[in-house]
């Protein structure tokens, strides 16, 4: 399952400056593992102790995966996965 992944500015150091990259997987977790095998270190920026890092939002097409199964959310061939840092503070 090939998907397109949009990479936010802060993580482009892992992708050689690329804004979008291709990845494979049938769940968000698999896509992240596949990303990490090509762009080392990116997984550690997204996942902490087996769950999605609270500073990061991941969307499959328009859906925030926090509301659709988290890392186990499924992705289909041709889907767009968007990674965005949460904008928040105190």
């Amino acid at each position, binding site marked *: 399952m090939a998907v397109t992944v949009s990479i936010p*500015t802060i993580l482009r150091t892992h992708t050689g400056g690329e804004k979008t990259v291709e990845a494979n997987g049938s769940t968000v977790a698999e896509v992240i593992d596949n990303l990490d095998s090509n762009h080392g270190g990116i997984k550690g920026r997204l996942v902490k102790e087996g769950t999605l890092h609270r*500073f990061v939002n991941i969307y499959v097409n328009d859906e925030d995966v926090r509301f659709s199964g988290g890392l186990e959310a499924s992705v289909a061939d041709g889907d767009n996965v968007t990674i965005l840092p949460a*904008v928040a*503070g*105190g």
Partner: protein
Amino acid sequence: MLRIRRDLVDAIVAHARRDHPDEACGVIAGPEGADRPERFIPMLNAARSPTFYEFDSADLLKLYREMDANDEVPVVIYHSHTATEAYPSRTDVSYASEPEAHYVLVSTRDETDEFRSYRIVDGEITEEPVEVVTEYPSATEAFSE
């Protein structure tokens, strides 16, 4: 240094006053690479809290897609503190993930309009001067200087 138009400063302060006692937040987008804040985009504080702010996740996606389509970046990311000074909190620093952005803080704790700007990179806060201007120099004026 942050160079910003007076009307944009006024718009941020007005938003912060309007949402007080909750924190207000938003973005001023500008052309990629220009470091020039132009388009004022007030955001909803999904946390609706006097001590926390968070862009709604669907709004965030819409905002970034829109900026992407316009070749814009978030030049300014602003929010208010409603009971403390306009200085980034530990939470602000832990979430800060736009090293190119000017993080603007406004305090609504009293009548003074405290308006300050920071860079937050790798967990380190650096305050920067703010220059308020009536308008940005046009490309031709800048060229003749």
